[in-house]
């Protein structure tokens, strides 16, 4: 099937190279939205190989990208009005940074791809422009040794490519820096929201079941009276961990993500308390406090994976301290919940 972003072919040494459009259409936008919600992610790929933008000659620049369609799209969009080549590596449909971390956007694949497409027959120069975040997987000096091509690390964000070119292929400090802005964080929320759905359903199921306990075994009345509110509380805890934590990340007063999540869980709990929906007695209120903050804390801790400034050593340290606390909170919370049902 011919992809819609391919508008034609250009012939180099008798080989047809597809030309891609620099305009994104409605379908590209819809596709991007779906991917953000975790739909169709696996099929959102571009075939690895060489592509042309505009009408490039042998002197045109070569930009290297991943075969994750969002990476590819943001690159071609930012090459509007330029002539250039795009070399797409086979990163198994994963974006540049993730793929570089895993080594699929890596030295070996880049060298391979340069050889497969015969890049030295397509261009007359020896310059490759890689997104800076690809550096985690690519050793520039090895690529040079093996292929003769010089790797230039461009800006972190494709949006800076035009400025990078205008500045004479120089990435300034700002272009090299990874930020984790409000917008960056918000963009991650849908995917995390969908990703955690199994945790959500499992926690809802457990607390729904607990809500039915009474001194005389399971009681239908209890399910009716308490089940819905238990599910709602779990949902709010989930919301605290996955939505409130990322949004207020810089303002939650803790370094550990798990503690940040504890605070956003506490906010939700306080709202419940103020609206008199946290429970009927001290036992129940306390148990909900523990359960809500545990859920939120655990999910917030998982957000370390989406953040762009947490280190492996740091996360290990955080987990060593937080996980025992979370387990303690969860067991105490559930214990209180059961005790409360049996006593009252």
């Amino acid at each position: 099937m011919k992809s819609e972003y391919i508008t034609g072919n250009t012939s180099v040494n008798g080989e047809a190279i597809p030309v891609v459009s620099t305009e994104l259409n409605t379908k590209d936008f819809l596709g991007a939205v779906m991917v953000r919600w975790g739909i169709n992610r696996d099929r959102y790929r571009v075939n690895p190989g060489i592509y042309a933008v505009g009408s490039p000659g042998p002197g045109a620049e070569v930009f290297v990208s991943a075969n994750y369609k969002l990476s590819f799209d943001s690159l071609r969009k930012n090459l509007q009005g330029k002539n250039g080549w795009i070399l797409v590596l086979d990163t198994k449909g994963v974006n540049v940074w993730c793929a570089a971390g895993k080594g699929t956007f890596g030295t070996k694949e880049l060298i391979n791809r340069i050889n497969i497409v015969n890049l030295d027959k397509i261009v007359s120069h020896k310059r490759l422009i890689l997104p800076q975040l690809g550096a985690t997987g690519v050793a520039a000096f090895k690529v040079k040794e093996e292929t003769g091509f010089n790797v230039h690390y461009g800006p972190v964000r494709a949006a800076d490519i035009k400025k990078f070119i205008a500045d004479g292929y120089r990435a300034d400090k700002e272009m090299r820096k990874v930020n984790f802005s409000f917008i960056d964080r918000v963009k991650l929320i849908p995917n995390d929201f969908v990703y955690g759905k199994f945790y959500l359903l499992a926690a809802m199921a457990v607390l729904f079941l607990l809500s039915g306990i009474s001194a005389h075994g399971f009681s239908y009345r209890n399910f009716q009276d308490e089940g819905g509110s238990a599910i709602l509380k779990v949902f709010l805890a989930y919301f605290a961990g996955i939505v409130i934590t990322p949004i207020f990340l810089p303002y939650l007063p803790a370094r550990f993500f798990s503690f940040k999540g504890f605070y956003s869980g506490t906010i939700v709990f306080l709202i419940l308390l103020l609206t008199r929906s946290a429970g009927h007695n001290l036992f129940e209120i306390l148990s909900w406090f523990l359960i809500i903050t545990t859920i939120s804390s655990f999910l917030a801790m998982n957000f370390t994976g989406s953040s762009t400034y947490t280190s492996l050593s740091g996360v290990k340290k955080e987990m060593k301290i937080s996980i025992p606390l979370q387990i303690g909170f969860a067991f105490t919370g559930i214990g209180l919940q059961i005790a409360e049902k049996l006593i009252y």
Partner: protein
Amino acid sequence: MKELVYLPDVVTLNLCEATCNGCGMCIKVCPHEVFELSGKKAHIVRKDFCMECGACALNCQVKAITVNSGVGCAAGIIGGILNNTEPTCGCSDSKAACC
């Protein structure tokens, strides 16, 4: 906006200044401005901002930099423990959030 910094004094980054030839590559690849070049040598100036991505060590031709690199991702670490592998993030499967 204030720049986010994670935990102090945990990062495993090390630079051997004697080995460094001052090529400046580590400065180009680091996404958190951890290095600075002065007197023809690189120096670590913002260690706590390092996220242990490993780009600097991989791109240092003389191997002056060492860092225990990997994904700073709790889900990845849990997954690694459960599967008895290195921590990896589940970027490639359809359900996973990305590190």
